[in-house]
């Protein structure tokens, strides 16, 4: 089984895993990083959304082989120590989560979006395809706008 070196949330790790093993299960089952959630395994729900070299990915459909020597950020690594990321801060202020299960993905998708789009329009926000079964979309929209101002 190949060995892969990764930088996960700022730390060097090395894992033995089959090349086609999705990053989600590497994170959850091998590294014990459980912030990214399983909701579908096929890139449809986006509950697992994380960053690969700063860009949004769905780790359930990205094989570990594509992550070698790259930087992976999960929801656990978004804050700067105890200082929340502005997106998390906005989420807290808008009291967004209900069950919370989709929220790591929602937050990571927003954090990625704001890197390239400082002032997302309603249409840009509508393009975020993360499912929230609890229906927190109105508060997510407000929180995104608040985070964009931060």
């Amino acid at each position, binding site marked *: 089984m190949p060995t892969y070196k990764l930088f996960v949330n700022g730390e060097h790790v090395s894992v033995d895993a089959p090349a086609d093993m999705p990053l989600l299960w590497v994170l959850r089952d091998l590294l014990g990083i459980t912030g990214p959630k399983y909701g579908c395994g096929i890139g449809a729900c986006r509950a697992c959304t994380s960053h690969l070299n700063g860009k949004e990915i769905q780790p359930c459909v990205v094989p570990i082989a594509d992550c070698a020597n790259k930087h992976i950020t999960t929801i656990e690594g978004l804050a700067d120590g105890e200082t929340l990321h502005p997106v998390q801060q906005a989420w807290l202020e808008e009291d967004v989560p209900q*069950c919370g299960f989709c929220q790591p993905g929602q937050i990571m998708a927003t954090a990625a979006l704001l890197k390239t789009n400082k002032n997302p329009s309603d249409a840009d926000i509508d393009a975020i395809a993360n499912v929230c079964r609890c229906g927190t979309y109105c508060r997510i929209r407000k929180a995104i706008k608040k985070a964009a101002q931060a």
Partner: protein
Amino acid sequence: MTERATADKHTDTNAGTTRRRFVTFLIAAPTLTVAGRWLGEGTARAQIANVSTPEVDLAAALQPEVDAVSPLMRLRVTEDNRVVFEAPRAEVGQGISTAVAMLIAEDIDARLVDVDMPHSNARPELGAAQLTGASTTMRNMWGPARRLAADARARLVTAAAERWGLNADSLTTRDTHVFAPDGRSTSYGSLAVDASKVAVPAVSPLPKPVSEHTLVGTPTPRIDGKELITGRATYTLDVDVPGALPTVVARPPTIGGTVTAIDNAAQVRAMPGVVAVVEIPTGVAVVATTFHHAQQARAALSVSWGPGPIADLSDADIRGRLQNATDPLLAPSLLQSTVDGEFDFAFVNHGPVETNCAIADVRADSAEVWVASKIPPIAQTVVATGIGLPQNAVTVHPIRGGGSFGRKLYPDAALEAARISQRIGDPVKLLWTRDDDVKHGRMRPASHHKMRFLLTGDIVDSFENRSAAVQLDMDVTPFSVVIDTSIELPTSGASFYHATQATPYKFGTTTKTLNEVQLDVPTAFWRSVYSGHNRAAEEIMVDRLASRLRKDPMRFRIDMASNADAVEVLRQLKSRGNWGRSLPSGWAQGVGFHTEYNAHIGCLAEIDATNPDAPRVMRTVIVVDMGLVVNPAGAEAQFQGSVIDGIATILLAGNHITNGAVVESSYADFTWAKQASSPLEFEAHFLNTGRETGGAGELAVPAAAAAVANAYARATGTFPSQFPINF
């Protein structure tokens, strides 16, 4: 209204119960632990009105038992100044842990951040107190939580008075501390041991009057917000149970299909990472070292399957059966005219983002289960029965749920996980993959509704609702957790329908029946149960009736609503929602109204249906009278979610059945509402006409569904009757 008056009113609601008095008492414990006790006169068993008459209030029916078992609830103060309440009801996203913590913080005078709300393990002796459902929690916990907290506060004050040699009446409390007039203060934690020895409190142990509340009633963010946004919140599959092996189950192509043979078990067992392949009643379990290996092995399995019990049925057959199952409508007399409607609703999966899952560790004579369960004692019973252990040998640890909407009333995954763990002799963590969850998970029963108004001229003589639905699975009813067998509770879908479905208008003689069609599909309570389709359909009929009478639908509801509080909600909705404002062509407003859970709610939706195949609800306004609202921010969140439920179930998402199998398999085809389908504007306005706290979790679903359907109908000039519309 004072607290006493409220408490008395609560008691009075429970028709036929003897008047009871609540006292709290002390449990021998090293730090302060209080529990409540009901002193009953005469029989301790409650009698309630027969539920076969409509409009039975389930929260009121359960209240005597929740009160009666409150001696067994545990509130403790720890030496490190934490106020810890072992929550009997489950947090699945509805925000009850925050709202109950607010009740406790209010009456113990603690900072909200000092209150912890761990879930209580399954404790069958808690009876109805461990049934999280029917939007009862804030109503059922209002009394017990406040009384426990107030009693604990009284003991802390008494302990401080003794320590300082001061009169207890001179002391005050706030922010998890006791204060003396001379400026001294001490934390509750420092008093926890002494307070545990206080036999009789020297100050009143009763909750404060509502007029003195400073926290309850104010919009308050979730107490667990930070955990939820940092990835630290622990859901079932995040629990670290050492040695628990990732497990998935190969399931039949049809609902309820059976394993005929596993053709290549040995080959699959030899695959890398695979630990075991075992047959269970619902399929073939594959246990491995990671979920990746488990899924790969499952994909490699070759199983011969026998057909499930409805393998010869598809949607059209089921719809036909439902249509044939409704009772006939009354024929009009010669002088009468009719307004008729027929409606079909598809099956709908609950679709929580967290799929069914559980961890189980079954040993020879004991078992432990970790699962998001809204009724942990039922999970305990079902697991115990399934693996042949006595109930008290099974420990159920309820875990935070990643959404429920009714799904987590059912311990399907816990039972499977326990069976697999028993078979292989190791702990397992079981994941239902999304396709498992959509194809084999429980659904809201499909339904058909025939409705008729009979009119003489413009006078409404009668309203008839003849409905049929696929049978609601009540094999294990949520109410089986209730200890007091004299409380009459629904035992079938039909009796649940009759207990809950009321039409809040003056429509003359109102008759409704629900006939259930027996069909072997996994059905379930689904947020708001029958109200979500049955009452939504009735509200569509109200619009049709208004149209026949050439009345404005909002004005017509105001005229026909059956009581003054409902009229007030509708009036406020009309003005605050700006009913009748001018909108672009292809857009329209719609209204829906509903009364249940001791509350009235109106929803106004504005839809852009310029493209009828891709309508978008642009704006929704809610006006609600649910009495005293413990946490308006939490209630608002429930209404926002319910509006999305209304949008999804009316416009977008349902499940098809073809040849005995659910067609959909993920969110790609089970097209639940996403951001692009959610309203850009949302408002909720709370009225309080003085009623007691109402239930919020399910209340808005029927009103929102109806508002969306009525808005769509008005925008498109059509009469939608099959839901979801774009299916």
